[in-house]
């Protein structure tokens, strides 16, 4: 690949001075929050196992309940990464849980591996199966994706049920094959980790179980709130959008699936360690669905949702409530027409979908957020946005030189062509854009303008021709490579993360979204704190630049349309691009907003950005564009300054719908009128729009 890998931190460094103090504050407060969360998580983990500290017989059932909750929590946290963030509904988590549980026991008992190695081996197996499943299902979404994960889980279930090595219905381990029905507790570094089974023995295994669970929750929170997590949400929103943000969608999907699978397996490992015996019927479809329900019920796409959901579901299933509920039905309704545990879980699932689609945590969060931000949202409707771009900031920014404008053109398209089946959408088009230049592309509907934008940004591979950017050949590169090379874009209808805040939308635009490695997202080294703070300061600057500095915590969907567009531009800038492709940025804007947009685009040009603007708004085009390309029927119709192009007879005719023959001459229409003939390439400088070309 010949793309230029740019330093993602450059955008932040540009303004190292004034933000330094802010950054320190941000680092400290982020650190304080994270430490507080970690301490709280570990404290809760320890508190819940305190009842078992003496190994009293009465505490055994409590410890087993805690262990079940912990195992379910870990599996649900993993699944949440898929279902909640990446929006891939996997029905296979139970399968990974089973692989973890059986795999760790089998490797230790039958293969004689050291128990710790056996656990690692089982987790690795989960990861491999997960990777294979992910690659197999890469092109699938929706029901087909769910089915392939379900098939995987069923396959695992059948192997456990019918594979002789696993003792079938006798369970694992069993007397016939192993002479015992329980696995040996692990002894590691001189400590034996006893399961909660025998009165008088302290269930030492509970300590690693709850500590690991707490760690999983802490690390998953780090991941969810990192650029890595943002990339998952981006994929969930739209894979196209994600790749425009520089995310290698294929790799990231495999990575998140492997991570989720390993966590599913880890849940199973915990179950093995806590209960010492496995029965295949506990790893059926019901388990998989219970894990999905835990995520949805608790709140998918939230950090604490799967935790709350897992704890609530396990508690519900093991408490007497469901039994009592079904007894009550038998007493009051019918002896036979009643629902017991699995039916009631189904009803609970349906009720959750109907009444609480965001789950417990999501709904609570929304209520709190509504309270906090009612005022902010009101403000969002009022002042600010594109119509009130801060003059001062624009002024200020014009002094910040983006980059020494190098000589020669930044983007060059040579003889671009794109054919869809029988339709030649773009043909033989040349185009070049310099740094510090605004190049507008106009033309009637269906002229091929959006296709051109998609060719530049890598959405379409050209049928012919070449794309050169900053001296590198970008022809046929995928959108994420194009994005990393320094070309950002906005869309005809703003593609935002509607449920995320304005600031989080901008943060997702930084190159980090595509580049932060998983380990850094999970472990959050000091450099991550500094970079987060830098990004935050930079995002504040970008929000101010587009006039959204007053509403950073409002949800993007609550913004009026014009401000959503402004936000999208801020996000595009966050990636530190050299060229921005804007697809109809003025569509749907009010006149004042359009004028504000013009100011903003011109200030960006003055900073050295190159802009390609696909636009219908001639007003805006004539005001801001240095060069105008008018397309018609996929071909170049006219090019030049706005003055030249907008007064070109053929351009006017194309827009007015006056038919022209292939020589550019007006065709006789049935009412007998003709347009003034104009030769190819001729531009008539004098006639203004109001009198140009009208025969009557």
């Amino acid at each position, binding site marked *: 690949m010949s793309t230029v890998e740019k330093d993602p931190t450059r955008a932040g460094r540009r303004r190292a001075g004034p933000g330094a103090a802010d950054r320190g504050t941000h680092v400290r407060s982020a650190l304080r929050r994270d430490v507080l969360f970690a301490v709280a998580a570990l404290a809760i983990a320890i508190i819940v196992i305190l009842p078992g500290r003496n190994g009293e017989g009465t505490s055994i059932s409590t410890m087993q309940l805690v262990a079940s909750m912990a195992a379910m929590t870990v599996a649900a946290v993993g699944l949440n990464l898929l279902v909640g963030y990446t*929006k891939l*509904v996997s*029905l296979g988590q139970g399968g990974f849980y089973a692989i973890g549980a059986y795999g760790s026991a089998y490797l230790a008992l039958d293969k004689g591996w050291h128990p710790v190695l056996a656990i690692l081996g089982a987790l690795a197996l989960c990861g491999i199966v997960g990777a294979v499943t992910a*690659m*197999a*299902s890469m*092109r*699938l*979404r*929706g*029901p*087909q994706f*769910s*089915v*392939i994960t*379900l*098939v995987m889980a*069923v*396959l695992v279930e*059948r*192997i456990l049920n*019918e*594979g002789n090595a696993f003792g079938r219905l006798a369970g694992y381990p069993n007397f016939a094959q192993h002479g015992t029905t329980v696995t040996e507790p692990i002894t590691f570094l001189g400590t034996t980790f006893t399961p909660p089974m025998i009165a008088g023995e302290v269930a030492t295994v509970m300590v690693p179980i709850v500590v690991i669970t707490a760690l999983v929750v802490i690390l998953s929170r780090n991941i969810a709130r990192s650029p890595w997590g943002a990339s998952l949400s981006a994929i969930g929103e739209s894979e*196209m959008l994600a790749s425009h943000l520089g995310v290698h969608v294929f790799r990231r999907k495999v990575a998140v699936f492997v991570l989720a699978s390993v966590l599913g397996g880890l849940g199973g490992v915990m179950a093995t360690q806590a209960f010492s015996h496995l029965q295949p019927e506990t790893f059926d479809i*019901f388990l998989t*669905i219970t894990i*999905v329900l835990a995520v*949805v019920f608790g709140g998918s796409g939230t950090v604490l949702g799967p935790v709350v959901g897992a704890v609530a579901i396990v508690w519900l299933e093991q408490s007497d409530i469901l039994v009592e509920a079904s007894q009550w039905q038998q007493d009051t309704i019918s002896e*036979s*027409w*009643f*629902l*017991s*545990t*699995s*039916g*009631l*879980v*189904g*009803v609970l*699932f*349906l009720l959750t*979908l*109907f009444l609480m*689609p965001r789950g417990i945590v999501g709904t609570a969060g929304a209520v709190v957020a509504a309270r906090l931000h009612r005022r902010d949202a009101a403000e969002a409707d009022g002042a600010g946005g594109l119509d009130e771009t801060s003059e001062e900031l624009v002024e200020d920014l014009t002094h910040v030189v983006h980059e020494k404008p190098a000589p020669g053109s930044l983007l060059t398209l040579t003889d671009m062509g794109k054919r869809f089946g029988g339709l030649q959408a773009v043909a033989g088009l040349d185009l070049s854009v310099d740094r510090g230049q605004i190049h507008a592309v106009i033309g009637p509907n269906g002229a091929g303008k959006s296709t051109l934008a*998609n060719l530049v940004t890598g*959405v379409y591979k050209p049928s012919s021709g070449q794309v050169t950017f900053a001296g590198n050949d970008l022809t046929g590169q995928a959108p994420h490579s194009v994005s990393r090379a320094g070309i950002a874009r906005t869309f005809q209808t703003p593609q935002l993360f509607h449920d995320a805040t304005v600031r989080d939308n901008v943060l997702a635009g930084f190159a980090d979204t595509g580049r932060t490695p998983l380990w850094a997202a999970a472990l959050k080294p000091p450099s991550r704190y500094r970079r987060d703070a830098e990004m935050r300061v930079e995002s504040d600057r970008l929000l101010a630049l587009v006039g959204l500095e007053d509403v950073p915590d409002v949800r993007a969907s609550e913004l009026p349309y014009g401000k959503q567009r402004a936000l999208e531009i801020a996000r595009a800038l966050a990636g530190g691009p050299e060229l921005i492709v804007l697809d109809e940025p003025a569509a749907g804007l009010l006149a004042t907003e359009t004028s504000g947009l013009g100011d903003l685009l011109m200030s960006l040009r003055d900073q050295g950005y190159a802009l390609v603007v696909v636009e219908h708004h001639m007003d805006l085009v004539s005001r801001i564009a240095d060069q105008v390309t008018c397309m018609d029927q996929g071909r170049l119709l006219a090019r030049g300054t706005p003055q030249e192009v907008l007064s070109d007879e053929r351009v006017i005719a194309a827009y007015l719908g006056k038919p022209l023959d292939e020589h550019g001459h007006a065709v006789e229409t049935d009412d007998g009128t003709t347009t003034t003939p104009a030769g190819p390439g001729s531009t008539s400088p004098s006639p203004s729009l109001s009198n140009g070309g009208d025969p009557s």
Partner: protein
Amino acid sequence: MEAVVIGLVLGGLYALLAQSFVLTFITTRTLNFAVGEFVALGAFAAIAVSSWSWLPTPGKVAVGFLAAAVVGALVYRFLVLPFTTQGEHDVRWLLSTVAVSFVMLNLITNVEGPSPQRSDTARISGTVDILGAGVGKQQLVLAGLAVVISLLLIVVTQRTSVGLMMRAVSQDPDTASLMGVSPRAVGAASYFVAMGLAGLAGVLYAATVGASPVMGETLLVASIAVAIVGGLGSLWGPLLGGALYGVLSQVASYQWGAIWGETAGLLLVIVVLVAKPEGLLGRRMEVKL
């Protein structure tokens, strides 16, 4: 050879159920994960009326069909349709039909008890010798029915005005409604027919293995697999998928043991999805931007 014949016959049963997945998918882009329970529902409905001596056997079979069909249409209207409103990527219906499956399975189990019940409706005993394999007449009828119903569905969709409406809704529901066709009504009708077919399969299947609440659950995965292998968008798909899946799994289990039978079938699904995500006879969905 015996394995091949039995595999083909077995594939017929899967194909019948796969047809109900294809039918709902074509018109509504949804799958009913509770299909297995509709199989049981049909079987038990027929048992419930088995003592009505005034009702001839076809009438009892029809009761099995109608019971599942009516519940199916209601499930579509109240538990599927509300969860399809958020566009293409909205798969909440997937979760809601899984929940329906739980509720129905549990309810049927509580009402009828978990153990299989004998069902005599539409029972045909005896075996036929085909190429050296002894095949139960009942299974043969099921397989034959799958073929007949598939052909019938194909004729209806290709030749009748109802079929024209279905194809229109399948290709572009918004434009279909501009032609005065209600996509919801077409969706409800296809759920009616699809679940009715599941009920019908239940009545006939129960005559051989008895009716039990979990009788359909075991068929669910195999029939989804068949539908996916053949292609969710094609009514020919289940026939091809059923034959492939049935033969492959039977041959594999004859050769290497029962566990490999199913494993081979499911691996077939994975291979097909990787190589051709739209299924062997499916059509690639046009990408819209």
